[in-house]
């Protein structure tokens, strides 16, 4: 007898959330409070609409921005949506080169989705058990060090995975990424394609099973297959179809792809995927898993020469990825005024203005917006990554974004650092802020301080995204936030070569 479906699996099986789109205006009119839990908290996510228990009635919309590419006219549509929410409105750049909008009413959804469609944006299947935003090299197409332009590949994979015949009911979320440069660290994805050679031809080696969670953290491992770029969409579909059919639907905490790989064994898993791929007319070559990713990701901040002579990109630091309507509109205007109108988002939650002619650099660097989003931030702010925190997420145990920003600013006031140090802040063990990838990882926790339970962080150290990648390991299981600055100050001095500034000593 088949095991009984869990509540979530029942909800997904009963109705696909995509079917709700034509009813959005009607649902808004009747009020979100009347929606059943499954519709409110599960199905709407198929449209990219997230109920937020911390702000009931004020929803979040998560987009899909393949490869983190967005154009000024698209960003303006999003800025307008946030602007309409007044002080409730904000947006985050996510660690998947994506944007999520906050503070929206359910009444906003139908017009927003139409407005997005009109400028070529979608939020479809960006949440819950779906293939999430597909990431690629943020410098794709403009990168002097580029091995492969990931943009068309990412676009093609997305198009294939959102097609009508693609899976719509995976057992769990699924992250896919395509590498295109020597610094494309992507091993935290369920499925990663890393640039690799085979018989003198540049293609991709397939890595599978990377993920972070409260229970387990893994870097992706080589599947032993090599693909040409044009095979990536079909192969991704084969992996998803197999995952849809064979993934664990009984225990959600054991349903990410790596558990399936474990269950079947790598060899058997590979054979199963190859059979699925073969059914789609595909054929993959064997490969030893060697690839051309050799170092940790560049920040891309500051003025950087593009592959195209005479053009530059300018990387701006967006502190902890938080945007408001005014900043979004201004970013769009600046991109249009000084570049080609195109912007890129990075996994470190920063933004790039691209295609800026040499002669336009000075004017761009003089823009008032750059006082807020600096092209030359301090060595900690440059690579501070943060999840949402408890302002909007009910899982988070601390206000991560505001804490991260305040702590980093204070540390930069106190210390001089010889190089950037990547800090990853996350509010709970679900690890959305990827603490295991940080040189310093910080995870929200509770700890006893002066006899009281207080907000605190666990500290992880040693995450490395270089040629020999490894996950950060637990260093301290509970530092109260009130003690965090001095604790991190000492760590940075002892382990990362920081020196106290004269005025602060």
């Amino acid at each position, binding site marked *: 007898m088949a095991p009984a479906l869990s509540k979530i699996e029942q909800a997904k099986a009963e109705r696909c959330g995509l079917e709700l789109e034509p009813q959005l205006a009607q649902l808004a009119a009747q*009020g979100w409070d009347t929606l059943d839990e499954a519709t409110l908290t599960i199905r709407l996510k198929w449209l990219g609409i997230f109920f937020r228990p911390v702000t009931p009635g004020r929803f979040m919309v998560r987009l899909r921005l393949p490869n983190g590419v967005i154009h000024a006219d698209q960003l303006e549509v999003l800025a307008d949506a946030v602007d*309409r929410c007044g002080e409730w409105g904000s947006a985050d750049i996510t660690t998947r080169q994506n944007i999520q909008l906050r503070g929206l*009413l359910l009444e906003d959804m139908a017009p927003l989705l139409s407005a997005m469609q009109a400028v070529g944006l979608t939020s479809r299947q960006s949440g819950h058990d779906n293939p999430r935003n597909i990431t690629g090299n943020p410098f794709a197409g403009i990168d002097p060090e580029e091995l492969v332009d990931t943009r068309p590949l990412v676009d093609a994979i997305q198009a294939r995975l959102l097609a009508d015949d693609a899976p719509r009911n995976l057992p769990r979320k699924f992250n896919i990424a395509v590498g295109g440069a020597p610094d494309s660290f992507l091993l935290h994805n369920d499925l990663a394609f890393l640039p690799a050679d085979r018989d003198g031809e540049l293609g991709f080696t397939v890595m599978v099973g990377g993920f972070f969670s409260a229970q387990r953290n893994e870097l992706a491992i080589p599947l032993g297959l090599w693909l040409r770029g044009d095979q990536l969409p079909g192969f991704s579909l084969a992996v998803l179809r197999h995952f849809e059919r064979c993934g664990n639907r009984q225990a959600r905490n054991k349903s990410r792809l790596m558990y399936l790989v474990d269950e079947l064994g790598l060899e058997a898993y590979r054979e199963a995927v190859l059979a699925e791929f073969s059914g789609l007319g595909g054929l993959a070559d064997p490969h030893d898993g060697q690839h051309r990713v050799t170092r940790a990701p560049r920040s891309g901040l500051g003025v950087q020469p593009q592959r195209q002579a005479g053009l530059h990109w300018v990387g701006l630091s967006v502190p902890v990825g938080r945007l408001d309507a005014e900043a979004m509109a201004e970013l769009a205007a600046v991109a249009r005024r000084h570049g080609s109108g195109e912007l890129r988002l990075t996994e470190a939650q920063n933004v790039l203005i691209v295609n800026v002619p040499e002669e336009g650099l000075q004017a761009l660097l003089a823009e008032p917006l750059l006082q807020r989003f600096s092209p030359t931030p301090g060595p900690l702010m440059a690579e501070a990554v943060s999840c949402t925190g408890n302002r909007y997420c*009910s899982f988070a145990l601390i206000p991560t974004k505001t804490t991260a920003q305040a702590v980093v600013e204070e540390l930069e006031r106190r210390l001089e650092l010889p190089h950037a140090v990547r800090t990853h802040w996350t509010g709970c063990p679900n690890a959305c802020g990827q603490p295991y990838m940080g040189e310093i990882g910080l995870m929200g926790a509770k700890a006893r301080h002066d006899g009281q*339970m207080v907000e605190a962080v666990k500290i992880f150290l040693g995450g490395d995204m270089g040629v020999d990648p490894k996950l950060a390991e637990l260093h301290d*299981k509970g530092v109260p936030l009130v003690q965090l600055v001095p604790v991190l100050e000492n760590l940075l001095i002892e382990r990362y070569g920081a020196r106290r500034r004269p005025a602060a000593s």
Partner: protein
Amino acid sequence: MRLPVRVETAATRWTVEGDPEHWAQLQALRRGRLPLQPWLEGLSSGALQPEPELLAALWAQLKRPEVERLLASGAAADAGPWLVAARQELPALVATPAVVEAWLEPLLEHQVQCPARQARQWLEVLAAFQDPRVAQRLRRVVLEASRLAIEPGASDGDLQELLPLLPLLGRQRQRQDAPLLLGCALDPGPLAWRRAALEGVALGLSTWPLPLLVPALQRLAEDLSSALAAEALDLLARLPQGQRALRALRTRPLDPAVAERLQRRLQNSPLVLVVHGRQGGVIPALYCDLAQQLSRRRGAPVLVQALTAEAPAADAAFWLAAQRAGSITVVPLLLLPGEHVRRDLPALVAGWRAATAGALPEGAGPSVGWRPFLGSWPAWQSLLGDVVREAAAGRPFAWLHHPLQGQLAQRFLHHLARVWGQEGVPAVEPGPALRLALDPEGPALLVPYGLAPSRTAESLNMEGVVPPSWEVLPPLLELPSVRTFLLDRLEALP
């Protein structure tokens, strides 16, 4: 007496806040992977503290008898942790029948039995549930508090604890609460109180009767608090026919930031410019350029439709703009009241109405309106008089028009002749008439009365058609002053 750090039983090792395994254990409890009874026993007996995260994990798991048992025990003596748990967990659960069945009645009963301060906190817990009885209790408390709020000297502090009740009352979506919530937002009182009331209005937006809601929001848009005014403006923009309400604010004294926000919210209608096409429905490039420039200036799509061709295809952006603006405007760039204006235009507008009904869901469709034909605009007639006189520079001139039939058309031509001081010449075999009107030997200006190139106008430029001493004015749209006039006037249309 409450037990300290850790409680062990044969079946369960309980953890408490601060324990490294606590989070994982609560997740397991929330997902129904741990037996409930030991936890219930622990809470009811006082062996376990009713910490918010534990209560949150239990909300969806309990049956009514278990809820009643918990509420009757010491675990419910302090509403504080329950309230924290309810804020975190209940919003997503309150439409789940099993949760309503388990919690609503016991909470209704428990809340009335508590002392005042506890009762208020329990009311906030209860208020997550949408129920007329809950709404009634909320209404009573808000009403009392609203009297306190408008008393002189009332401060944010006095009302701080009651602020969450206003959005919760809005979420109850009882139409009868519109006056109370709008009154709380409008009446003088602590700003935090008024903003909480407006958030209550926002969270029940589609419920409130528009005749009450629209004027109240319009008044709030003029409020001295720019934050309050901005939110009111944004709510107006979300309403059906909200554009009309927003336009009415254009002449009101608004805070500068709010006025800027108003400009951002005002949505121009997409335009359909109706023009004379050329043979085969070809649209002269001059019109396309005008539409493109106009579209940029208005921030809304502009289509050009030739009278002699099918309606142009409207894309998703056009329909979206129409939906947001609530209207589509047809502007006939026609200069004379001929058959096209009198017969073709109404049919063309009817075509757009039918297309609108087909393209958008019922009730979401914009209205389709049309302006008088361009040639009838007094400002246009006046402009043309100036343009021609300036171009003529003292030379005699004649204007050449499309031939017209009927009394109405003749009266219109006489009217133009009066305005411009010169009779028009019909374009059918114009040669003799023109030679009567103008001296073939002397200098003169010939004005083809058309916006874009036409066959007749072009034939005038052919060698030998008009005397060499006559100048033929180019198509009117090529004249900078005419183009500027049209762009300015059309941009200003709503």
